């Protein structure tokens, strides 16, 4: 086998920089990886859609409901105090995970989508006026397109799109040409969910700041793969979601610079976000509570805190190094099949492989792979403009996580050969 050297390097699981990474031990921490699908061991390659959950995250959520379930920030009773502590500890964990300067800069939300909508509505709607501009790029997920389109309709602002090249990389000079004094917001993805491209977010932010625009980075895909440092990036807002980083669904976080959050009007009204309410005048609570109306997803936040602990225990650099070797192995394995065409070949890439198999429609490939127990995503990946950029309506996408192995990739390539056989290609 051509890729046997890479195979050995990845299989050992050792990385150049970090501690020894034992992928089999990691796999043992994810109960779902022990199940079968259609009579075959599960090969889960749909991590960009959602990741699986380690036992420690599942246990943390169960323990919360079994031991300390109560509403937070109210009530003097013991359970409420314990639940509040755990919730606020989770906030501090997320703060440290992305290196925000203070915990108040972390707002718990439902998802990265909600984080972006919050910024569009609370910041954008109170700041932008007719003729202002918002800059995104071609590879955005719909969640970083549609909230800005809504904002444009509401304010008369204009959405401008920075193009990408055939490898799926941002054309940086063309992005810079779009920036001007009317540019008020730049919203860019850190990692493309459809292509795997890693954007130069620091340079993107610096360029935007030179023109006085605020910058939001959509970090939904980045959090499980890369060390994140919002202060080093310099961005004003950063969105992440829990379920893609081994945490529960229904919880995400928005980072915002304190002075911006403080000046922004609330996003939603209700309990928790107020200091005092009369029918004449309501005074809002301080950040972050101003943006957390209603009883939040307490168990979700605590579960996300456990996922952060989990990732930090393994070491995000170790994860990144392991995935990078696995991506090399997978890329070589797919390129060894003549009928496979990779879409998205950026130099700086996360472990996402978008591809086509001959002229077989991705949905047919997906069904055949599923019969082999292999879970991949097929379709437009909620990123129709990037599909259109490549003249496609759909691709097959295998997206890797820290628990994937070279055996998973071998199963994928065997499945692709099966699809070719079924379709006589």
């Amino acid at each position, binding site marked *: 086998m051509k890729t046997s050297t890479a195979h050995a390097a990845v299989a050992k699981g050792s990385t150049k920089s970090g501690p020894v990474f034992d992928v089999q031990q990691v796999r043992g921490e994810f109960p779902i990886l022990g199940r079968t699908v259609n009579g075959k061991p599960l090969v889960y390659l749909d991590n960009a859609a959602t990741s699986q959950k380690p036992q420690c995250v599942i246990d943390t959520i169960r323990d919360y409901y079994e031991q300390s379930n109560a509403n937070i920030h109210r009530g003097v009773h013991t359970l409420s105090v314990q639940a509040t502590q755990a919730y606020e500890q989770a906030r501090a964990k997320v703060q440290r995970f992305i290196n925000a300067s203070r915990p108040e800069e972390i707002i718990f939300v439902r998802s990265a989508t909600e984080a972006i909508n919050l910024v569009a509505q609370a910041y954008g709607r109170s700041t932008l006026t007719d003729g202002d501009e918002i800059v995104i790029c071609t590879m955005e997920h719909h969640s970083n397109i549609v909230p800005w389109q809504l904002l444009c309709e509401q304010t008369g602002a204009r959405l401008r799109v920075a193009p990408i090249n055939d490898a799926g990389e941002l054309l940086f000079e063309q992005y810079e040409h779009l920036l001007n004094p009317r540019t008020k917001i730049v919203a860019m993805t850190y990692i493309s969910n459809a292509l795997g491209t890693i954007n130069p977010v620091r340079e993107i932010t610096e360029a935007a700041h030179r023109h006085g625009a605020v910058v939001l980075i959509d970090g939904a895909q980045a959090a499980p793969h890369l060390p994140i440092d919002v202060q080093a990036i310099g961005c004003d807002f950063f969105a992440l979601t829990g379920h893609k980083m081994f945490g529960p669904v229904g919880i995400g976080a928005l980072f915002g610079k304190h002075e911006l959050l403080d000046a922004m009007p609330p996003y939603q009204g209700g309990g928790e976000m107020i200091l005092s309410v009369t029918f004449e005048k309501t005074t809002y609570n301080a950040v972050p509570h101003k943006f957390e109306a209603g009883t939040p997803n307490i168990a979700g936040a605590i579960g996300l805190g456990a996922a952060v602990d989990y990732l930090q225990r393994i070491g995000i650099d170790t994860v990144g190094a392991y995935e990078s070797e696995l991506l090399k192995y997978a890329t070589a394995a797919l390129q060894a099949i003549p009928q496979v065409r990779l879409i998205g070949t950026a130099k700086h890439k996360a472990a996402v492989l978008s591809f086509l198999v001959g002229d*077989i*429609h*991705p*949905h*047919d490939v997906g*069904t*055949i792979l599923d*019969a082999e127990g292999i879970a991949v995503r*097929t*379709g*437009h990946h909620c990123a*129709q403009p990037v*599909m259109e950029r490549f003249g496609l*309506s*759909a691709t097959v996408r295998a997206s890797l996580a820290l628990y994937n192995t070279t055996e998973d990739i071998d199963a994928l390539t065997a499945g692709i050969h099966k699809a070719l056989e*079924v*379709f*006589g290609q």
Partner: protein
Amino acid sequence: MNELQDLYQELILDHNRSPRNCRRIENADGEANGYNPLCGDRVTVYVTIDNDIVSDVAFEGSGCAISTAAASLMTQSIKGKSIAEAEALFKNFRRLVMGEAVASDNGPALGKLEALGGVRRFPARVKCATLVWHTLKAALDRQSQMVTTE
């Protein structure tokens, strides 16, 4: 693997490779667009009606093997049928792919459409098989709006 062979049987693969009646009909009496927002598949169905009979039917579009074969087989099965017969065939076809009992005594025979019966074991793919039929119905009703699977 048996279920997979049942789904991708030779007749389906043949109609996917060489779809029948895959063309545009100029000045069609009815024309409708179908769209599956989940996968981005699009199909346009054209019908010519003479005295309540579907004298010609054709489709254009891009989709998976199941949707392409379903469209191709649909055109073959309803050409020359009355509008009422075409609609009855759709009802029976839907029962087939949903895994419900097909009314064999009073409904029209499915014939080659039976080849798509394997879809019932793949719930995620049922819409691939039915989109073109929903679009046909809109074309027969001379509706101009977009039909979606959602």
